[in-house]
C-alpha cells in the first residue's frame, strides 16, 4: 500500500502548464465527428478503426441482450401485477446495458443508476436482489461490497463522483481495477457530473463515464440539456479522451467501451463515452410518454433494434444459427419464468433492520425507538391472535 499508485504518480500534480505555443492541444481530444458504427442498421459490417470483439464474446453479448430484454419485459409486467412498486425500463438500450457490464471485469466497480436493472442482471446479479429496490423491500438487495457494484443511484449524477473516488482509492491501494459509471443524458446537466469527471481527470483516475443518451430525461428532450453538437464533446473541457457511438450497434458499443476501459486501466485517465440510443418504454411504468413524444418517433427507433442487428450480423458470420437462437430464447423464457415465480413469494422484511443499520451500533435513542416499534408490533400481533 505504500507504493506510489499509478494514477497518483501520473497526475504530477504540481506541474505548471505554460502559456507558450503548443501544437493544437485540443485536436486529439475531440471525439469522432459522427457516432462510431461497426454494423449498419441491417447488421452489415462497416469498416472501423475499432477492434471487433471475438465471435465468442459477441455471441455471449447476444445471449445476454436477449435474456436482458426478456427480464426487462418481465419486470414491466410485474408492475402491472402490483409486484413491483415502479420499474424504469431499458428496453431499446440493450446494447448499452449489456456491453457496459461485459466491458469490465468482475472486480471492476460498476455504478448503475435506477435505469440499469438490465445491466445488473447481465453482470450476473440475482434478479430478485436487483428488484428489491423497486419492489419496495429495501433500498438495495444485493451486496455492493462483495459484488463491486454500487447500489442503484437515484440522485442524478452523484454516482459519477463516487466512481472517481473508488477508482482513485483502488489505484492508491495498488489495484488495477477500473470504475464504470453509467449516467443518463439529462444527468450530465447536474453539477455533480462536472465535478465527478473533473476529479477523475485531474487525478487521472481510471473511470469510464458512460452516457446513455436516450434523448429524454423523463419528458425533457436533449435540446434542453445541451447546446453542444453531442454530449461526448464535454470531454474536451476536461482534457480527457472521449468518443461517441451508435448506442444501438452492440458491436460498436462493446468495441468502444473495450478501448475506453483499456485506456483507463493502463493509466491514461478517464474516458467519456456517449452512446446515442433510445428508450422505447415510458420513463417508468408510471409515466405517460404520449404527452411528450409521438408514436412515429418510437416506431422509427423500433426499426433500429440492437438485438435484431446483432443477430443478423452473427447469423451472417456463421456464429449463430436457428438452433442457437432458439436455445437462447428458451433460456430467456426459463429465466423469466423463474423470476416470475420467485417474485410471487412475498418476502419477509425484518422491521428491526430499520434501526440496525443507521449506524454500525445503534444510538440509545434508536434503541428506544426500536423498542417502541417492537412493542407496538408485539401488541398488534397479540390483538391479531
Amino acid at each position: 500500500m505504500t507504493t506510489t499508485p499509478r494514477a497518483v504518480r501520473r497526475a504530477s500534480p504540481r506541474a505548471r502548464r505554460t502559456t507558450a505555443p503548443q501544437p493544437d492541444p485540443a485536436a486529439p481530444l475531440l471525439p469522432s465527428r459522427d457516432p462510431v458504427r461497426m454494423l449498419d442498421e441491417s447488421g452489415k459490417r462497416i469498416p472501423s478503426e475499432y477492434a471487433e470483439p471475438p465471435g465468442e464474446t459477441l455471441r455471449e453479448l447476444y445471449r445476454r441482450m436477449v435474456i436482458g430484454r426478456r427480464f426487462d419485459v418481465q419486470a414491466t409486467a410485474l408492475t402491472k401485477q402490483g409486484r413491483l412498486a415502479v420499474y424504469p425500463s431499458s428496453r431499446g438500450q440493450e446494447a448499452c446495458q449489456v456491453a457496459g457490464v461485459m466491458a469490465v471485469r468482475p472486480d471492476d466497480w460498476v455504478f448503475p443508476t435506477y435505469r440499469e436493472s438490465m445491466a445488473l442482471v447481465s453482470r450476473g446479479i440475482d434478479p430478485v436482489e436487483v428488484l428489491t429496490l423497486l419492489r419496495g423491500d429495501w433500498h438495495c438487495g444485493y451486496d455492493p461490497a462483495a459484488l463491486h457494484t454500487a447500489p442503484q443511484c437515484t440522485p442524478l449524477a452523484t454516482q459519477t463522483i463516487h466512481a472517481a473516488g473508488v477508482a482513485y482509492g483502488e489505484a492508491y491501494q495498488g489495484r488495477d481495477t477500473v470504475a464504470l459509471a453509467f449516467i443518463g443524458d439529462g444527468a450530465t446537466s447536474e453539477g455533480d457530473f462536472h465535478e465527478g469527471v473533473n476529479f477523475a481527470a485531474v487525478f487521472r483516475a481510471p473511470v469510464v463515464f458512460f452516457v446513455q443518451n436516450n434523448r429524454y430525461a423523463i419528458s425533457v428532450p436533449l435540446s434542453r440539456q445541451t447546446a453542444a453538437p453531442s454530449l461526448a464533446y464535454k470531454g474536451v473541457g476536461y482534457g480527457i479522451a472521449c468518443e461517441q457511438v451508435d448506442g444501438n450497434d452492440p458491436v460498436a458499443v462493446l468495441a468502444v467501451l473495450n478501448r475506453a476501459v483499456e485506456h483507463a486501466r493502463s493509466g491514461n485517465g478517464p474516458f467519456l463515452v456517449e452512446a446515442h440510443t433510445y428508450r422505447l418504454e415510458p420513463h417508468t411504468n408510471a409515466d405517460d410518454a404520449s404527452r411528450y413524444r409521438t408514436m412515429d418517433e418510437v416506431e422509427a427507433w423500433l426499426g433500429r433494434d440492437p438485438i435484431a442487428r446483432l443477430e443478423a450480423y452473427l447469423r451472417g458470420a456463421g456464429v449463430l444459427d436457428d438452433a442457437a437462437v432458439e436455445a437462447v430464447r428458451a433460456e430467456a423464457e426459463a429465466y423469466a419464468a423463474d423470476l416470475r415465480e420467485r417474485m410471487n413469494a412475498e418476502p419477509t422484511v425484518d422491521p428491526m433492520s430499520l434501526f440496525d443499520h443507521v449506524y454500525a451500533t445503534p444510538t440509545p435513542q434508536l434503541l428506544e425507538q426500536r423498542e417502541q416499534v417492537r412493542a407496538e408490533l408485539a401488541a398488534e400481533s397479540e390483538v391479531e391472535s
Partner: protein
Amino acid sequence: MSAVTTTSVSMAKALNAALRDAMAADERVVVFGEDVGQLGGVFRITDGLLATYGEQRCFDTPLAEAGIVGFAVGMAMSGLRPVVEMQFDAFAYPAFEQITSHVAKLRNRTRGALGVPIVIRVPYAGGIGGVEHHCDSSEAYYAHTPGLKVVTPGCVEDAYSLLREAIDDPDPVVFLEPKKLYFTSAEASLPVTTPGFGRAVVRRPGRDATLIAYGPSVPVALEAAEAARDEGWDLEVIDLRTLVPFDDETVTASVRRTGRCVVVQEAQGFAGMGAEIAARVQERCFHSLHAPVLRVAGLDIPYPPPKLEHLHLPGVDRVLDAVARLQWDDQPDPRWVAA
C-alpha cells in the same frame, strides 16, 4: 381568474389553479423546472400551463436544481417572479447552497435593495410508497434558515390561497406540498382566500389537549382527535399552515386553555420542527401545562422503503398513545423516569 363555482377539487388541481390564476394576474410570473412543460410535472401540478401561457412562461430546464434556483434568483433580479418546481424533496438538496447562501440572504445582504420574490415548490414527505430519496420531510432545513418563509398547506383551500400568497409575497417562499394529500379532495370554490401567512388555524376546537400539526400530519391529527372522542378526550387541532412566520398567538392561547399539548410531525424527530414547537410552547405556557409537551414524529432513520414506511409514519395510534401519556392522573411519565 377562474370562475367561482363549488366543486370537488383535489389539492393537485387547486395548486394548478393557483398557478394558472397567478400567471393570468401577473405577467411577471414564470414557471419552470424539470418536466413542468409538456408533461405538466410528474404530479401534473403545472398541467396545461405551457399550452395556455406558452414556452416563455412555462418551460423545462436542464436537469440541475442549483441551476434552476440560481436562474430564478437572476430572473428575480431582473424583475420577474419565478415559481420553480423541485421534482421531489431530496432533489432540492443540490440547490441547498443557492437557497441558504443566496435566496435566503439576498434582501438582507443588500439592505432591502434586492428582494427575491421567488417560490420554490417542493413536493415533500411520504406515505405514497415512494422509493428512497422521494419521501424526505425537509421542512426543518428550511425553517432553520432565516430569510425563507416556509409554508405547507394541509387542505385544499389553503393549497390554493397560500400558493397565491406565496407568489405575491415579496420574499422567497419554500412551498412544501404534502405529496400524499395531492389527491385528496374537498368541496371548494376557487378562487378562495384563507387566512394569510403567519396565521395558524384551529381546525377542530377542543378542551382537553391541543394537537399541533402541519402539512401531511394535519389529517392524522384530525383523525386522532375523532378517535380520541371515544376515549373521552376532547382534543383541539391546530394547523400551523406556515412554519415561518410562526403563529405563537394561536398556539399559545390554545395550550394555555387546554394545558396539554402533543406535536405531530412526519419528519424524523431529532432537531425537527416539532422540537421548536415543543420548546416554544413550554417556554410560553409553562405554568398552564399539566404535562410535558410531547412529540409524535417519524423515527430517526433514513426514510424507509415502501414496505416499511407505515412503521415510520406517525399514525393515529401513536398520537393517541402520546395523548394517553399526558399525565391525566398527574403522575410522572414512567417512560422517562428511567431515561
